[in-house]
């Protein structure tokens, strides 16, 4: 009856699908990746950029766990820059511009090299029997058997493009989309809602006046998103910064009546962090100078991306907007900006932290269909869904990364324990343990886990371990080695504008001084401070020493917090029993949201840490519970 048999089928070859398929294959399972179009694997239909605060952390973590995104970026970048160089060591992160076409070619190549079966066909139905995945049916009438399906359909489900007054059925960039799959899925207890997102116009670079813009130059010699690889300089291209003008704002104000947000032919739930230019003018009518980052779409194309000018206003208004900006006055639009509406399956109360659906065994969801935004967020989920699908094939313990382990852990924890009304983006501010979850520690935190799961090979793991030990050794050395306040030492210190020593102090203490960094310490005390294997290693030593106090404090928070989140709420628990025992405010929220675990409770906005500790005791300790409820054991 089945045409072919796979362990795992992945639907959709975007950033989530690529990671899912790749990791399942790495873990030795038979996998097939379905896509509408083999030539658009790894499409980046929005900006040609990967990384930045939060997102950059994700890319390193994906790389640390054997994902492919770091490698793909490394193979296709047009430039890489270090951001946040003056905000403290832990804030520093990378951002890359990529050649979109090259990224797609490399994505396909990597999958083919790995031996992933890639197929061009549309999955129109996931076959589910008795709450369990059996296989998939395609538009060409083929039937494939599989135990696991990972749905990574991005913004392609029941997708509709909105542009001015027009609205039509199509996927991103007018690609084919899927209008059959969702309907059939809903029969199996799956919940759906709708989100929207939008993208700006692209223009012909030969018609841009770059002289009037500020170039943003790439960095060279730094480590890339791929472990151990350096950014080489020959291939890099700058991007540019320009601004809207008073006239732009005037034009938009005049034509606001044509904006889909005003017309109302678009879903409300768009991302606040990515507002259209019309939205910006509505919200901040006084501000004339909105930033526009002008980024190349690739090496072999004349198209440039105008980050900051997202809009789905009609084409003639889009022309007028460009005409109001001196540097883009003559710019010829190659593709118009548009908005897209698509199906989202909110993970809260629907997905387990493994990303498997609670009602359908073997069905995993990852990426933008989970209501997240961003290539990086999608890739991270694809990786975890893939790992868990493969692990559960063998009946093994599945992988749930905690909030204190990684940005990935925070991302998945957030979306599965809280509901969101707009596309979710992972800000660093959502990551409470960011002092320990530094981009620079991604490999030390996650590669050992990935190695145990068999996702990364021994050589990679050993390299990571070697680096970790080198750093650890050096930190210890700097803490132990004491410097005496001799005349010579104090003269050296004075030369670099640092205060003299009055007693013996360790090299670590000296490095903690704000004016010091590792290379200065090395220059002043070359006889004690070693040259390390890479500038990254030296940077990490410096960070561990300078941030020691904060790191320690954060670690002690971690164990406390994680401890008090460990309890379950019995199904159907009557929260009213606790009236008068915890604050009325917290109680209201508990009744309203009826959480099922300590983890969910900890995310509630009105439940304080004190309440959490109380509830932990209440649900864990029977004696305590009986006392609180004023009952005797036999009454319960």
């Amino acid at each position, binding site marked *: 009856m089945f045409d072919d048999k796979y362990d795992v089928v992945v639907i959709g070859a975007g950033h989530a699908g690529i990671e899912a398929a790749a990791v399942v294959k790495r873990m030795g399972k038979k996998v097939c990746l379905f896509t509408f179009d083999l030539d658009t694997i790894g499409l980046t239909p929005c900006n040609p950029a990967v990384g930045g605060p939060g997102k950059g952390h994700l890319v390193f973590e994906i790389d640390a766990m054997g994902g492919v995104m770091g490698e793909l970026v490394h193979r296709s970048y047009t430039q890489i820059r270090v951001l946040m160089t003056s905000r403290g060591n832990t804030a520093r992160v990378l951002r890359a511009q990529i050649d979109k076409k090259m990224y797609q070619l490399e994505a396909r190549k990597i999958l083919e090299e790995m031996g992933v079966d890639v197929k061009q066909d549309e999955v129109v139905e996931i076959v589910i029997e008795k709450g369990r995945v059996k296989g998939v049916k395609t538009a060409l009438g083929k039937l494939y058997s599989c135990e696991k399906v990972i749905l990574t359909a991005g913004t392609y489900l029941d997708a509709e493009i909105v542009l001015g007054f027009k609205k039509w059925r199509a996927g991103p960039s007018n690609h084919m989309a899927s209008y059959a799959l969702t309907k059939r899925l809903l029969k199996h207890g799956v919940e759906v809602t709708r989100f929207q997102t939008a993208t700006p116009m692209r223009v012909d670079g030969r018609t841009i006046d770059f002289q009037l813009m500020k170039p943003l130059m790439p960095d060279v010699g730094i480590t890339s998103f791929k472990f151990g690889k350096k950014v080489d300089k020959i291939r890099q291209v700058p991007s540019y910064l320009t601004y809207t003008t008073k006239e732009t704002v005037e034009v938009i104000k005049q034509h606001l009546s044509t904006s889909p947000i005003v017309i109302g032919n678009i879903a409300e739930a768009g991302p606040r962090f990515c507002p259209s230019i019309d939205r910006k003018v509505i919200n901040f009518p006084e501000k004339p100078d909105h930033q526009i980052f002008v980024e190349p779409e690739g090496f072999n194309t004349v198209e440039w991306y105008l980050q900051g000018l997202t809009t789905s206003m009609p084409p003639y208004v889009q022309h007028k907007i460009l005409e109001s900006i001196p540097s883009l006055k003559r710019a010829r639009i190659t593709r118009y900006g548009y908005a897209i509406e698509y199906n989202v399956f909110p993970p809260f109360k629907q997905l387990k932290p493994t990303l498997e659906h609670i009602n359908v065994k073997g069905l995993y969801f990852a990426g933008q269909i989970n209501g997240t935004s961003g290539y990086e967020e999608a890739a991270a989920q694809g990786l975890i869904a893939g790992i868990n699908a493969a692990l559960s094939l063998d009946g093994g313990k599945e992988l749930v990364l905690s909030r204190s382990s990684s940005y990935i852990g925070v991302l998945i924890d957030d979306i599965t324990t809280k509901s969101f009304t707009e596309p979710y983006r992972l800000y660093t501010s959502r990551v409470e343990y*960011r002092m320990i979850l530094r981009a620079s520690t991604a490999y030390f935190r996650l590669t050992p886990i990935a190695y145990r799961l068999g996702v990364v090979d021994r050589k990679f793991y050993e390299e990571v371990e070697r680096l970790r030990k080198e750093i650890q050794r050096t930190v210890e050395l700097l803490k132990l080695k004491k410097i005496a306040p001799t005349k010579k030492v104090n003269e050296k210190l004075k030369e670099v504008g640092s205060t003299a020593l009055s007693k013996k102090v360790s090299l670590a203490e000296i490095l903690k001084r704000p004016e010091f960094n590792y290379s200065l310490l090395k220059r002043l005390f070359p006889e004690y401070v070693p040259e390390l294997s890479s500038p990254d290693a030296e940077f990490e030593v410096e960070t561990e020493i300078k941030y020691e106090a904060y790191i320690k404090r954060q670690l002690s928070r971690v164990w406390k917090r994680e401890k008090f989140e460990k309890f379950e709420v019995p199904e159907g628990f009557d929260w009213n029993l606790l009236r008068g025992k915890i604050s009325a405010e917290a109680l209201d929220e508990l009744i309203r949201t009826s959480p099922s675990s300590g983890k969910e409770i900890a995310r509630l906005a009105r439940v304080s840490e004190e309440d959490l500790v109380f509830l932990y005791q209440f649900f864990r300790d029977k004696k305590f519970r009986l006392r609180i409820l004023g009952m005797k054991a036999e009454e319960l």
Partner: protein
Amino acid sequence: MDTIVAPATPTGGAIAIVRVSGEDAFHIVESSFKVNLAVKDGKWNATLKKLKIGDEVLDECIVLTMPAPKSYTGENMVEIHSHGSSFIVRKIVDTLIKHGARAAQPGEFTKRAVLNGKMSILQAEAINWLIRSENSKGWEIAKKQLEGEFEAVIRKLRKGIIDLASDMVADLDFSDQVELSMDYFEKKARYVLGVLEKIVKSLERSVVIFNETKVVIAGRPNAGKSSLMNSLLGRDRVIVSDIEGTTRDFVSETVNIGGFRIRLVDTAGIRLNASDEVEREGIRKAYREIEGATVLLLVVDLERGFGDYEKNVLLSANGEIIIVLNKSDRVDDSRISEVMESVTTWVKNEELDCGRVNFAITVAKDGIIHEVVDKLKTILKGILDVEIPVVPQERYLALFKDAHKRAQEVVDAVRNGMLDAASFLLEEIVRDLEFVLGKVDVEEVLDEVFSKFCIGK
């Protein structure tokens, strides 16, 4: 919620009040004493009732019924006003307990009021201290906190923190679009620091106000401590002699100075080489008093100068200090400035807070002590001048002191260009002060970011 009962008045008055609160309060009172309360929905009602136990009338009482939610606890409440016999009160309480009420734990009525949203924790604690206040200043502070003045400060603090946090988020998460200067962050961080500083200072003073203001006289043997004590009291309370170690134990008296009621303590002179056990015990006690002093009067014998004895005492002091330069009749002016100079130099070297150290020149034996009195009055006025009305709840002091320390670290981190650490520290402050600030959710901060900054790709 079960129904609780407790006497609300101390024994010994003409009238006693028993309070009952809980869902079944009316029912329990009715069945306990065979009365019909005729409770009117939503209305308070006071009636005169003969309370019976069995067939016997126990007492004729005023029974006040207050249906939920319009009562102190927000639950059904009854107050029984009986005659003030401890026997009657005990009978009433026992009977109610027999019929299903439970003896209330200390503070349980107020706790229920808080949990039912009738008042905030801060208000409940204010009530607690209002009951304990013994002077007009304490009463004023507790009353203002009850009325919400401290909460207003907390709201301001919360707003300042969210403002700063959202700026940090904007800068750290949207670095390409928002770039704020470190000076700007420092200014905002200093604002938060300033509010916390005021709260801590007010709390410290509040502690003094609610406790006794203690002024302790210390100094080496024979410096003239007892003479000073007598002069301040205006009578010969303590024995004065030129034998070292005359005062063996400490002597304490209450005295009114410039309208402030203070406890004045004369201690045994501190001798480093005290030989007998009685004197050594006296010295140990003296140190304990010195540590707990709101104001320390350190008597220095000008003839002998400022030495190790005096230094030891100063290092133990926690409060304000007046250095009393005594026996000024026996020395000339140059000696006085010489001693003052040596004190000042030492204080600076030890990095003690110079603002805490004052000087007064006296002839204690002849009652020439006006400089001490004037300085004392100024200091007391300063201490009692509390900017933010906040009661000295124990946990406040520890938590706010901690938060203040963190806020200083935030400022330092910003100055050192570590905005990442500053934002982490700010979150720590928020978490530690959660009990007063309420939870600050990351979404709330993000909302603020999006309303303040035009952010977007």
